[in-house]
């Protein structure tokens, strides 16, 4: 499998700022995203990668949550899938969820229906 990671669509300022405030939660979401990628590269189809930390937000937008941190701040890393590319879009907490999802949807709309 040739699954690759793409960070070019990501909101880098948001990632940097969020990591400064919540490094453990950021690392956990990134670790889980890497776990997902590793599983996909192992040949498990995306629709069968039934991780507890993975949720669909609809419209081709997905989110990875944090795990393994007691009393963690709820954190979501948003991404979309194009072919065998996992494109990271944004990271945020519960309080910015609505705005984060809207922003990610706009990015996905700009990609012209390539996502699944």
């Amino acid at each position: 499998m040739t699954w690759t990671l793409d960070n070019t669509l990501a909101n880098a300022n948001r990632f940097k700022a969020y990591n400064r405030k919540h490094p453990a939660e950021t690392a956990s979401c990134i670790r889980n995203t890497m776990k997902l990628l590793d599983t996909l590269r192992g040949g498990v189809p995306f629709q069968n990668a039934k991780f507890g930390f993975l949720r669909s937000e609809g419209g081709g937008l997905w989110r990875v949550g944090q795990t393994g941190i007691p009393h963690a701040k709820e954190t979501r890393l948003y991404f979309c899938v194009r072919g065998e590319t996992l494109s990271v879009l944004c990271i945020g907490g519960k309080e910015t969820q609505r705005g984060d999802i809207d922003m990610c949807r706009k990015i996905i709309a700009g990609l012209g229906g390539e996502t699944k």
Partner: protein
Amino acid sequence: MNAKKEEDIKAFGELVGDPDGLRKEVARLDEGCALVSALERLRVERGLSQRELAARAGISPSTLNRMEAGTDDQLTIGAVRRYLGGLGLSMHIMLDDESLPAAAKIKQSVIAIGHDLARLADLARQDPGDKELVEGIGRFRGEVLFNFLLRYMDTQSKISIAPDIRPGEEVFEEAESPLLHPV
């Protein structure tokens, strides 16, 4: 860490602006959640959702979700046993007493190897067409234990394991071990 993972963590490190900090945090999480991650991987590789496995394991989906979202320290032995049972797997626990003298530790290891080989022979026996494999494993187990006893004959009284084993003999009797318990 394989090359792809290394590339990924490097890319993420640049994205968050702190490659070293990210690497340390990920390593800390890997260390604290090694068992949780292994369980989760077994479930996903079998194509089971949390809900499906919970039904098979006889635990609630929310409990299973909490297990996978937590750390190794938060797991209970009973929950892990049920989780593995739902996957059709069993669990063995090996207790390793660091305070034991070297001879006793050697005995522990040999008994554990003996158990593994006995289990291997049991598995091979389930394939009725492969008598040669069963005999081969039995012979190998006998030789391992015999050679061990031969080499450490002078300390045999301290580390007596299976005194009647001879090379070439099929050995399927379980040596009693306080260290390897089916759970």
